[in-house]
């Protein structure tokens, strides 16, 4: 696989149920996402956006096909490792619609939780976390609890958490859904900046077409097929 490729999906299928309850969601999806690329994943509700994201995130079992994350082939008709959770911990950062920070951990503990689980020392992980928090301009909130921060600050802390394990891939599930247009644009611009500066591949599920021009590329699910389109940069807000 090309060293610039962060995600490669080949002939991926996903269906649910059997007999009368059989539903096919994704049929023969094949695409790549490069490092440093911000890709939007757009489709109507129920079309399978989150399912596709979950399969790439090693959470949902595909029916068949292959998935590469970085240079590691993780799925080929079956998971090639029993430690899918390790792959998520080491290679992927997740961002959700809500911040979903652990409410009983302060901001820096939320950010350092995964790195420390990966074996990074407390001192080193905190040093790196503080740099990330500084990057997101919430360094002074490091010892605050999530309940003490505004929604925007928490979302930035959640993005810092997603980056803390130095992932190759960020999977963002509708990170702007709860935000107004201005804040949505800020978050997407931030994701683009991260993708570029940290050389990370970002897939962002979104319903907001206004965000698409900010992305490098758009993946849509049409008739169960994944189609890649160039983003229309002329419509940037």
């Amino acid at each position, binding site marked *: 696989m090309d060293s610039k490729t962060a995600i490669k999906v080949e002939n991926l299928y996903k269906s649910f149920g059997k007999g009368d309850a059989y539903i096919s969601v994704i049929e023969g999806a094949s695409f790549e996402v490069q490092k440093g690329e911000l890709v939007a994943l757009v489709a109507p*509700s129920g079309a399978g*956006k*989150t399912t596709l*994201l*979950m399969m790439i*995130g090693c*959470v*949902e079992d595909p029916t068949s096909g292959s998935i590469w994350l970085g240079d590691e082939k993780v799925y080929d008709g079956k998971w090639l490792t029993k430690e899918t*959770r*390790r*792959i*998520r*911990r*080491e290679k*992927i950062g*997740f961002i*959700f*619609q809500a911040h*979903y920070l*652990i*409410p*009983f*951990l302060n901001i820096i*503990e939320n950010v*350092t*939780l*995964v790195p*420390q*689980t990966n074996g990074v020392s*407390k001192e080193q992980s905190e040093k790196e976390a503080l740099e990330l928090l500084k990057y997101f301009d919430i360094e002074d909130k490091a010892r605050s*609890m999530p309940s003490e921060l505004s929604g925007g600050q928490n979302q930035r802390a959640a993005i810092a*958490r997603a980056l803390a*394990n130095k992932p190759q891939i960020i999977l963002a*599930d*509708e990170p702007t859904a709860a935000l107004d247009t201005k804040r949505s644009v800020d978050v997407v611009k931030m994701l683009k900046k991260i993708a570029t500066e940290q050389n990370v591949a970002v897939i962002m*599920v979104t319903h907001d077409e206004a965000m698409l021009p900010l992305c490098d590329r758009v993946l849509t699910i049409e008739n169960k097929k994944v189609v890649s389109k160039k983003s229309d940069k002329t419509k940037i807000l």
Partner: protein
Amino acid sequence: MINLAKREIEHTLGKFVVTSAGVGMLLGIVLIMIGVYRGMVIDAQVLLDDVGADLWIVQEDTLGPFAEASRVHEDLKNTIATQEGIQSAEGITLQNLQIPTQNTLVRVTAVGYDPLGDFQIINPTRLVAGRVLMQEHYEMVATDKIGLKLGQKVHLGRDIYTVVGITHGSVSSGGEPLVYISLKDAQKLQFLYSNARIRNDRTRGAKVESPHMVNAVIAKVKPGYAVDEVAKQIQRWKHKSVYTKQQQREVLTKNLIKMASKQIGMFTVILVVVSTIIIALIIYTMTLEKIKEIAIMKLIGLPNGMIVKMIVQETLLMGILAFIAANIFAHSIYTKFPKRVVLEYPDAVTLFVVVIIASILASMVGVKKVMAADPREAIGG
């Protein structure tokens, strides 16, 4: 490494402490129940030890005055006293009375003994005020729990008694407070019918019973004689039941308390099971409350072991806090119980071990929920 259990408990400290204290009160009742049993065992032996007799000679085929009604003639003591190996013998009575105090009647056990005899029934270490009985009539020594004062007059039967001594910790084998009166007064109260009844019996031609009865004859064995052998000798020839002190102790601590101990044992087991279920339910609810966070933890890649450790540590800490609360609760109220409650260190240690095992078992329901939590629950859409 971040200790998730510690951080979560700190976050919900008030709720966690109050919940633990609630469970602790339940466990405190377990401690009290065990203490009640320990108290019963001690109470059962107080009078037996205070009397200090080697032998208890009672009505044939009865277990003696602590367990069954027993009547023997008072002059049996003279016969017993002449047996080989006997140093001295006296009559003793035990009966239940209702003592009138300021506001109410108090149920007591009255011990009747010869104040001028060889047995010093009142343990001098229990005497906290006044003196022992020194006259053959109308004196009473009462335990402090009854509420009588030194010099107070008490009306019993046909006579008025004066309280001449106060004891502490004197109880019957059933844990009731004791009063001591002279044997002659006790016989009058227990065996002497009213004049009207005696006249009526005479008119009917019925034989009027002698009031010179006792419930048991107690005896001391001379040094150098085997108590068991002397007991067998008396039992064989005098057609009475004879018990050594040890046999009476067994009657008191095994036969009489057997049912009570089973009863308390059942309650204790039920309370421990209920406590375990309550801890399990609390942990289950606490786990459910953070199932979203658990799903997120799983999604971002935290290993199951780390999440399970959090649940088990929280449960164990709840158990330990509950145990501490149980001890504080039990020690702060056990003296308020009307009967003796004895809280012993080994019982607390045993309960601690049981609580730890119960906590580990209870944590399993939370662990099961953790294992079943689906990381997909963290993401909507």
